């Protein structure tokens, strides 16, 4: 049984409410941080923990905090990114819905470390019932002296407000989120200046994901060094994985990052295998933006080693032969799934979510969707596959924010690994409307690379 740091109390009856949460040891990290540590010592502890941002990019959290500018007399803000919208990802929702006090506790400690007296939780608008849960937890924390003026007599003041979005994936990108928080369209900003220098209302701002901020609690409780001992290499601590698609037990799992992908998919502790005895075809291991991998490359790296559920191992082989940990949105496809169709739904998603600011993304995502729709419906040409490749190459790296890359990568990976399936659609325009291509060779052993 893997060690749980975030979800260990998730099944305690009444943990949603303050009394039970506190009885179970909640808010101890606030006492420890505010009473016995300076803000810089808290940041130091987070650095020691090796915690990496859990929203998708995996940037070291302590390092991000240390970049925060602290000019005299200018307020600073912490903003919690709860705009979880990456297809396949629903872990932050789980944390906020079932352990709201864990997030509030993490926010108080983090706000103290950063000197944020007013902290915001930017939550996607569709999670419309969750602000009530969070606001209840915030009110309870305040009534018990963990928020408000002069917290625990330390002179530190802090308020937390929930700010709802209104349906825009792009607002999960931190500068778009800040624009949205200012009451504007979610158009990402050109960096630099970085939010750490000029964020919301031109004030120094740190934006962190929900899970990242919740992880601050166990880091404070067990210490950064202890936290860093869990996991392997630069993948320290535990990670929430939201598993979905063709598996027996979809849901949110907390893993330490030493287990293998195979164990995660097939063991009863996690996904419980694939329903109806079907075989594994492919998987998108870290949210829709990361490269899809065929079964053979998913379970083993190109070197023939077992692939593990962590940052390094999932990206082993780079984009040609690997993928990414991303947000932990783990999407499993069985042998009956059509890669062209799946890629089309993702292309449509990115076309819908492009903010329209940069031409390559605004125009390119629309073209990719149209071409994919043609191929999927038996109206494609062989040259369309090369055209798709060409378009995604021209989007990647040519936009202000990473949405362009996120739209390009899934298409590149689908063509890279499943080109024969695209070609089959073109060559069999009638048949592709009535049946799927199937498993083909994707589950066969890897060819051994020779020099």
């Amino acid at each position: 049984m893997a060690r749980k740091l975030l979800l260990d109390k998730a099944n305690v009856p009444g943990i949603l409410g303050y009394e039970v949460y506190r009885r179970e040891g909640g808010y101890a990290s606030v006492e420890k941080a505010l009473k016995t540590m300076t803000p810089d010592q808290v940041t130091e502890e987070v650095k020691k923990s090796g915690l990496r941002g859990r929203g998708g990019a995996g940037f070291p959290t302590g390092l991000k905090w240390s970049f925060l500018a602290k000019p005299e007399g200018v307020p600073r803000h912490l903003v919690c990114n709860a705009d979880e919208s990456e297809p396949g990802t629903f872990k932050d929702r789980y944390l906020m819905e079932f352990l709201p006090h864990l997030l509030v506790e993490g926010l108080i400690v983090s706000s103290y470390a950063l000197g944020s007296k007013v902290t915001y939780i930017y939550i996607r608008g569709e999670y419309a019932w969750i602000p009530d849960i969070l606001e209840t937890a915030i009110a309870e924390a305040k009534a018990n002296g963990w928020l408000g003026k002069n917290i625990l007599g330390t002179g530190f003041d802090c308020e937390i407000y929930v700010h709802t979005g209104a349906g825009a994936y792009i607002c999960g990108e931190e500068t778009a989120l800040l624009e949205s928080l200012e009451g504007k369209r979610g158009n990402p900003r050109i960096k630099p200046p970085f939010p750490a220098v000029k964020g919301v209302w031109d004030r120094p701002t740190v934006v962190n994901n929900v899970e990242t901020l919740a992880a601050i609690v166990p880091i404070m409780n067990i210490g950064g060094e202890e936290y860093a001992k869990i996991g392997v290499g630069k993948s320290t601590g535990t990670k929430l994985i939201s598993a979905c698609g063709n598996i027996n037990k979809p849901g949110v799992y907390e893993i330490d990052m030493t287990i293998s992908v195979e164990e995660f998919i097939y063991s009863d502790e996690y996904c419980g295998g694939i329903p109806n005895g079907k075989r594994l075809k492919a998987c998108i291991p870290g949210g829709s933006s990361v490269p899809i991998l065929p079964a053979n490359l998913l379970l083993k790296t190109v070197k023939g080693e077992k692939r593990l559920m962590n940052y390094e191992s999932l990206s082993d082989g780079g984009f040609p032969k690997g993928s990414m940990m991303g947000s932990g949105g783990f999407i499993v496809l069985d042998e009956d799934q059509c890669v062209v169709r799946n890629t089309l739904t993702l292309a449509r998603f990115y076309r819908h979510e492009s903010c329209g600011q940069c031409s390559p993304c605004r125009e390119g995502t629309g073209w990719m969707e149209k071409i994919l729709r043609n191929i999927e419906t038996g109206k494609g040409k062989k040259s369309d596959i090369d055209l798709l490749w060409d378009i995604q190459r021209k989007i990647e790296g040519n936009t202000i924010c990473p949405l362009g890359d996120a739209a390009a990568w899934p298409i590149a990976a689908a063509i890279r690994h499943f080109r024969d399936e695209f070609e089959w659609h073109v060559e069999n325009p009638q048949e592709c409307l009535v049946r799927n291509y199937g498993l083909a060779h994707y589950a066969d052993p890897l060819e051994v690379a020779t020099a």
Partner: protein
Amino acid sequence: MLNKTIMAKFSEEKLRKVDEFISRYPEGKQKSAIIPVLHLAQDEFGGWLSAETMDYVATLLKLEPIEVYEVATFYSMFNLKPVGRYVFEVCQTGPCMVRGCDDIIDYIKKKLNIGVGETTPDGLFTLKTVECLGACGYAPMMQLGKYFREHLTPEKVDSIIEECRQTAATNN
């Protein structure tokens, strides 16, 4: 009923809520309250945002109307046209597709005899398809008002429609 122009004016209670929203942001940054206030307005004034409603929000927040239009047209949750009393927003992105959302969408179309983006003649139901709502593990799913309805099956859709009809009949 659908197209009736509703004079946009919040109750005292809602105005206090608007003030409370504004107080969450620094002095002079009341523009930040646009999205929360637009949500409030959409809920209050018939489930959509008319130009009149948006102008009213602009007045409340001391903004130019264009600043409100810009925001209202950007975010997918704001309806710029009248919608039915119950809006079925069915997710159709990858993970939901893998779990059969297309069948659910077809079933709702047949059952209500409307297409995507259309409203039933009685003004009760609108069908919308939306992109990922963050319920991938509980697919297929839809949003109905404030809440998610998950693990959808044709039977479940039937009972949701029945539930809406009954609520509408009792609250009329």
